[in-house]
């Protein structure tokens, strides 16, 4: 296979890879947005932040 053809094939493969990545992230973004719309009225799960040293000593 001539060098030019090999280069062209490589370029096509790179283009397919880039397009595949863009497609994946586009679909992910759309699905994330839809999920956010559906769950925005739901309460977020409880989250407790790391207690400070003083607070920790106070409890202990």
């Amino acid at each position, binding site marked *: 296979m001539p060098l030019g053809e090999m280069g062209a094939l490589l370029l096509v493969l790179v283009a397919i890879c880039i397009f595949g990545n863009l497609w994946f992230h586009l679909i992910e973004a759309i699905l994330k947005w839809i999920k956010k719309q559906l769950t925005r009225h739901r309460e977020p799960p409880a989250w407790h*932040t790391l207690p400070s040293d003083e607070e920790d000593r106070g409890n202990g």
Partner: protein
Amino acid sequence: MGLFSKLFKGPEIDMEKSQANAKKMRALFNHVVEDGDQYRLIFGYTEDVSRFNYGFVHGSKTKIGNLIVGWNEANQTIVVVPTVPDLSGCGDPAWYRRSEILKAYRSKYPTDAFVIYPNAKEYIGINAYDWLDDEKLYVYVSQDEELAAFTDFFMNQFATK
């Protein structure tokens, strides 16, 4: 020590950082679990693997969930608290009492996970290692002794088969 062993020696554990994180794990655990000091702790994680098919692009995604795992031998209880790699906070604890669970066993495939089924519909697979280097994904803590103790407890006292 030769030149090659210096060049190719594996990663070394920063024990200061590990101990600081072990203290944070304890503080978080005790913050959300009553009588937290009655439990010994290890760090574990769960893997949520999902397959996707977006037309011509398909594959699988893995989400890692960090966990502080506490166990109490006297009560035959495991408590799991979700957290994040930097230990800035944690979620609500989940209790798994041996007398109440459906089954518990150690899986061999695809990973050596500690699997607990609280009922027929839910399960949790806890993966644990003595140390994991990737701080972006996992809590940086060295825990050989604690992991050995947890494995012994799980296999000999908690597992149902």
